[in-house]
């Protein structure tokens, strides 16, 4: 089958998969009970509860509720988030952008520091610097994120007052438009350097806390790969050719050592996204993780549905893209058979 035909076939199947997923997810959330509780207060009497059920169509049978939900989705209405006290569709993009910004910042911290430390340690095997970096790596990999985050918070927010918590200085945040939802990018687009500095300043502590664990993993991987590479014959050959130690390290050994490390870097992004829940709660970061944790604890089903559907669709699309890339890379892969 041609790739083009395969893509068309998969794209045609995609809506069916999405609808199927939505039915399963909707049914599963309803098995946990009616979502009405999130809209109630303990002062309400049964008549008022009934009114609230009617307002959200929760007085109807579950299949009819699903119909209302899917109808709302097609009209851009993802329901009302009881946790955020706002329509889900208004809140989700902002929270998603905040979380992605944090995860990417943590990724930058982890990759840059991890590779630098790993290279530094690998090139100085069994010397003091190597030992220190090993201690740092082991502690980074073994320290619970919540503990390290609280430690940073106490030292740098409470004691020193160097870094703030939250996402922004509200006055600076309010002063610029937010077309992308990424505060750093929006600040640059607005040409507001004070806002950009504010965005970076707020990112540092949660990004370091979140990125530290991943830094440790990357550094350890980089170190061991580099040590292996430095023992290869081509390194001796390069040195024998008269190349400087730095050139051998940077141009030859580090380049090759990066191959297995890059695989690990890809895997750690998932770890970073997962860690945002804890980092967002501790640093009061207004992202998806904190919102979702509250939604699960408080039974905010409209929010949970949106999140699960979003990740499911993302997964379906990523799967499709990966299949296509595989087929392109390796012609032995037979599509659709």
């Amino acid at each position, binding site marked *: 089958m041609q790739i083009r035909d395969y893509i068309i076939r998969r794209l045609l199947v995609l809506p069916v998969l999405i609808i199927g997923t939505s039915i399963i997810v909707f049914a599963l959330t309803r098995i946990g009970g009616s979502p009405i*509780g999130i809209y109630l207060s303990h002062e*309400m*009497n049964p008549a008022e509860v009934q009114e609230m059920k009617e307002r959200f169509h929760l007085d109807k049978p579950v299949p009819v509720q699903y119909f209302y939900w899917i109808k709302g989705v097609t009209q851009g209405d993802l329901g009302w988030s009881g946790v955020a006290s706002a329509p889900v569709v208004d809140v989700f993009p902002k929270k998603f952008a905040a979380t992605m910004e944090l995860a990417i910042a943590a990724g930058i911290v982890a990759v840059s520091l991890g590779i630098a430390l790993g290279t530094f340690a690998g090139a100085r095997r069994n010397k003091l610097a190597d030992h220190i970096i090993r201690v740092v790596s082991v502690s980074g990999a073994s320290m619970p994120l919540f503990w390290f985050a609280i430690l940073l918070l106490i030292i740098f927010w409470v004691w020193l007052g160097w870094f703030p918590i*939250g996402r922004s200085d509200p006055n600076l945040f309010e002063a610029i438009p937010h077309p992308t939802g990424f505060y750093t990018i929006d600040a640059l687009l607005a040409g507001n350097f004070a806002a950009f500095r504010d965005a970076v300043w707020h990112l540092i502590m949660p990004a370091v806390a979140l990125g530290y664990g991943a830094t440790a993993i990357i550094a350890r991987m980089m170190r061991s790969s580099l040590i292996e590479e430095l023992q290869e014959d081509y390194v001796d050959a390069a040195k024998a050719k008269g190349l400087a130690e730095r050139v051998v390290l940077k141009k030859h050994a580090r380049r090759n050592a990066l191959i297995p490390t890059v695989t690990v870097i890809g895997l750690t992004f998932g770890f970073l996204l997962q860690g945002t829940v804890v980092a967002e709660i501790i640093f009061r970061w207004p992202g998806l993780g904190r919102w979702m944790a509250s939604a699960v604890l408080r039974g905010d089903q409209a929010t949970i549905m949106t999140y699960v559907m979003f990740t499911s669709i993302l997964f379906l699309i990523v799967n499709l893209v990966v299949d296509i890339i595989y087929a392109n890379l390796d012609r032995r892969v037979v599509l659709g058979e």
Partner: protein
Amino acid sequence: MQKLLIITQTILLGIFLSVGAQAQAVKNPGVLVHAADDEATTLDPAQVEAGEGGETVILQVYDRLLEFGPSGPQLIPGLASTVPTIANGMISEDGMTYTFKIREGVVFHDGTDLTADDVKFSWDRIVEMDLPEGQAGVIADIVADTKVIDDYTFQVTLSGPSASFLNSTVVSMAASIVSQDAVMANGGVVAGEPNEYMAQNVAGTGPYKLKAWNRGENILLDINENYWGENAKLAARIEIGAEPDVRVLGLRAGNYDTIETDPSFVADIEGADGVTLHTGGLLLEPIHVGFNLNIPEGSLPKEDTIPTDFFHDPRIRQAFNYAFDYDAFLYGPLAGFGQFNPHYLPIGIFGHDADAPVYGAQDKAKAEALFREAGYWDKGFSVSVITEESNLFADAALVLKDSMEGLNPNFRINVLAVAEAVFDEAHAQNPIEYAMWVKNADPFADPHPYMSAYQHPDGEWGEVHGFANGYRNPEKVAELIDGASIELDVDKRAAMYSELQRLLFDDPMWLITAQEGVTMAYRSWVKGFQMNPLWPRPSLRFAYLDK
């Protein structure tokens, strides 16, 4: 190695110097930073629930005709220039008609002038919208008619005489005055439907204007420079969603000026540099255990062995009251901040009788005697109590469990600690499918709403819980509550509540674990700190504060 030591020493010195330096400086000058417990759900007075985060903001950005002053229950003029009394002729002799002179020259945040039309519109609007989550009943249950006499005179006719109209209706956040022009230009009034504009914006006259509401992050309030009264001294920022520990750390660091906390954090705050702990007074929301006298057959959890009429017997209800370990709750979860109050008038409310008998000490002998008389001591029972998880209510349920199971191994209390949404759904049923539950009362400024909601056999909870099935003399209880609600003679009214408190001690419908004490912490640089539990939580009016 020596280099490393020098670097470490330099860093440590830097830390100590900067810690020392920051202890002196006022942080965030010109802005009061308040760390709140929860997010507002709406800013619309017609939609806000009693006691939720939106009331905190509504208190600051809207005005009412009358307000509670900075201390205690005394009323002060708000948008009405005078507090109506019979003496000044603004309350009719029969107590049915109230006249309010509206303050002239008051301007809404949108620039329009306040008139009596806006006042009538505001009150009528909440009744017409009648949202289930709102508090329309605060007005609808008591007001028969509203009338504009002239541009600056507003008149209310009640559906019956009421001793609590000013204290519970006029000052309510639901009775806040909104700009008619702003509402009509943004969605108007639709029966049964929330107004989205009003839920997210402000159309008031209060000392603060809404600058921004960044959901999940903060609410920014600007000073209303055109305020009719004394201008606020500080802008305000309400920080939302910090964990309780983070709020305490933020206060200690000076990043927050005031925080919402509870007694379990007192030990972390006491003695901290630059922090003042305010512990005077009591919250007006007693924490109670409900006894259900209206249990539907076959509805109880399968572990429960009690019959559905278990709590009809007043001896059982008394025995539970005697068995509870009050000290364990007061000196455990409440850290000693609280007191015990008679059924069911909190300390600080008119009519509270300090000499009335109180369940405030565990009496195992009396509890045993009553359970023996009722026939349950030897055969025992198992009963479930539902509560929200991870809070003071869950703690109270656990103390009840320890108390009862410690009293008699044949007794079994199953604590069902569930998510708030699950509890709210169970709690809103009629009849409720659980025999017992734990929560706190809603705060009121007058005794009548407490008595009406929580004790009257035909009241809100009396009807749901079937109090008529259990009172020894339900007619007498109803007569006293109804009589006190229309008695305008202060002494006679107080005597009626006193009698009720004695009656209800012998015939309790609740187990009142304690009245929680106020525990509020703020930076010592905050000047003019005033806290009145009659204001919505956290019971602060930001406009009074300076730093």
